[in-house]
């Protein structure tokens, strides 16, 4: 493994930010991605990596990305839940890396869920 020195540099950069974040844990926005066999087969991995990339580019310190198992609606995978603090969970279905940019910009940054990508729109 190489460039552990590079890692040290990233560490210095992120350290301050992490300390800041610890103080307002309740303000965290959560992104939860279905990563069971069905989710992975449908393309959850590129979706997850796209979220990490977008969050990193925009420097969104208050967003955490985590995984969950299969919730029984395999036909709608890849599924992603976005939970803004103090708000109802929003479930996005049939996600793609292309849709991630809009979800981050409109929902996570500006607080307006992208209705057309949600489970409500898909099940109509």
């Amino acid at each position: 493994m190489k460039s552990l020195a590079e890692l040290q540099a990233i560490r210095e950069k992120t350290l301050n930010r992490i300390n800041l974040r610890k103080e307002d844990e309740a303000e965290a926005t959560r992104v939860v991605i279905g990563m069971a066999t069905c989710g992975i087969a449908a393309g959850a991995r590129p979706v997850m990596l796209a979220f990490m990339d977008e969050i990193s580019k925009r420097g969104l310190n208050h967003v955490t990305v985590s995984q969950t198992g299969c919730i029984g609606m395999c036909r709608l995978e890849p599924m992603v839940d976005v939970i803004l603090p103090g708000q109802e969970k929003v479930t996005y279905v049939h996600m793609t890396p292309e849709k991630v940019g809009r979800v981050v910009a409109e929902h996570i940054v500006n607080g307006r869920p992208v209705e057309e990508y949600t489970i409500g729109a898909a099940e109509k």
Partner: protein
Amino acid sequence: MRDLSLHILDLMQNSIRAQAKAVSLSVLLKDDGMLSVIIEDDGCGMSEELLSRVTSPFATTRTTRKVGLGIPMMAENCRLTGGDLSIESTPGVGTKLTATLDTSSIDCLPLGDLPGTVTTLVTMNPDKPEFILHCRSPKGEMHFDTREIREALAGVPLNEPEIAAWMQESLREEIEPIFGGVIL
């Protein structure tokens, strides 16, 4: 599943569910084109009874439904190439899964985005288990170990977006020369 790296991501979820403290993944390509994918964990292991039926699509530890397709789909993809999948397990000690594939077979899946798989596993499971990756082919080899990264980061969590980006990039740089052109 479109490629082996997605299967690997899926199979390694089993080790995570088994409460493993460390999971090691070896991807080894020999001169003759035979590829071994070995996943070894120190998780809870399986009883002989569960082990005997675990390659069946109708075996799962989940209680919400009756199918589990991860292992049977990988086993099928191995057999299509003339390879095989075997699992050894000891309750309380751990499990070792060995999949072999003949990369010269037209039915062999490409390896796919292995850096993406490892980055996803680490980012989604930042605290435990530790992930150890070993890749080897006639062109070279590489090692990756989250314990080394954890030490270098001294307290900064492994799921920071910048660290995920670094991990994906450095894994790509190291893995591509090993498998590039052959099965990627």
